[in-house]
């Protein structure tokens, strides 16, 4: 199929304007009735979840900061312990004459 044949198909389809008058009839009335029904229905609980986002974000930040602080403290004490052990090991090695 070449471009001209395709364009011919489009021209044929363009020539046809769909008749929407039947669907348009009384449309405003149906639409307003739907808007009223939507308004009267209570919003589902999950519609409000996005409003809790700042609270969730704050909780995540607090947990994050606390975890980092605890890890920092742990790693400091661990480093101290390792350094101490290492020092002791070095001394024992030196005194017993064991090679590393």
């Amino acid at each position, binding site marked *: *199929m070449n471009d*001209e*044949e*395709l364009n*011919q*198909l*489009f021209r*044929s*389809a*363009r*020539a*046809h*304007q*769909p008749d*929407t008058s*039947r*669907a*348009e009839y009384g*449309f*405003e009335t*149906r*639409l*307003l009735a*739907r*808007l009223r029904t*939507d308004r009267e229905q209570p919003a589902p609980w999950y519609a409000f979840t996005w409003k809790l986002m700042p609270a969730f974000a704050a909780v995540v930040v607090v947990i994050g900061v606390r975890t980092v602080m605890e890890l920092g403290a742990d790693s400091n004490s661990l480093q101290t312990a390792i350094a101490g052990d290492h020092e002791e090991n070095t001394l024992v090695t030196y005194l017993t004459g064991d090679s590393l």
Partner: protein
Amino acid sequence: MSAYLDEPNDERLIQSTLTGDEEAFAELVRRHKRKVFRIAARFARHDAELNDICQEIFVKAYQKLKSFRGEAPFEHWVSRIAVRSCYDFLRATRRNRETVSLDGIEIGTQPDGNIEHARELLGWAMAKLSADERLVLTLLELDERSVRETAELTGWSESNVKVRAFRARQALRKILEANHER
């Protein structure tokens, strides 16, 4: 003449709607529904579907009315909502559309032939395209909109519209050729 002068413009109707005047919104709908129905009719398969799509469009317009800043006419703003809603609708119903039967539709293209058959054949082939392919071809080829207008309505860049249109034509040609060989 005086009746024409007394008629509130769209901005006034929008303001009234925002203060809770439903009748003002009904008047806005009355003024612009023809254009919205014309856009949606290219994608709907029957009147009930057309009614559903148009209701979705105007419900969205009602809900977003606060964000209308009046930089473009209300008609353009609601047309953008209409095109995006049709796109969402096409994506949601694509699977149903792919199974459209060719029964009763004359196979093969006839440049001088029956307009109705050509239209049905094109409708059948376009139902097999992806949502964005169908949307871009409908706006450019059937509604005869410019690339710029199509870009504004879809929110895609102009170069993106051109690329999508080129690919959509290729895909449509393939579908029609495959059908012709059968």
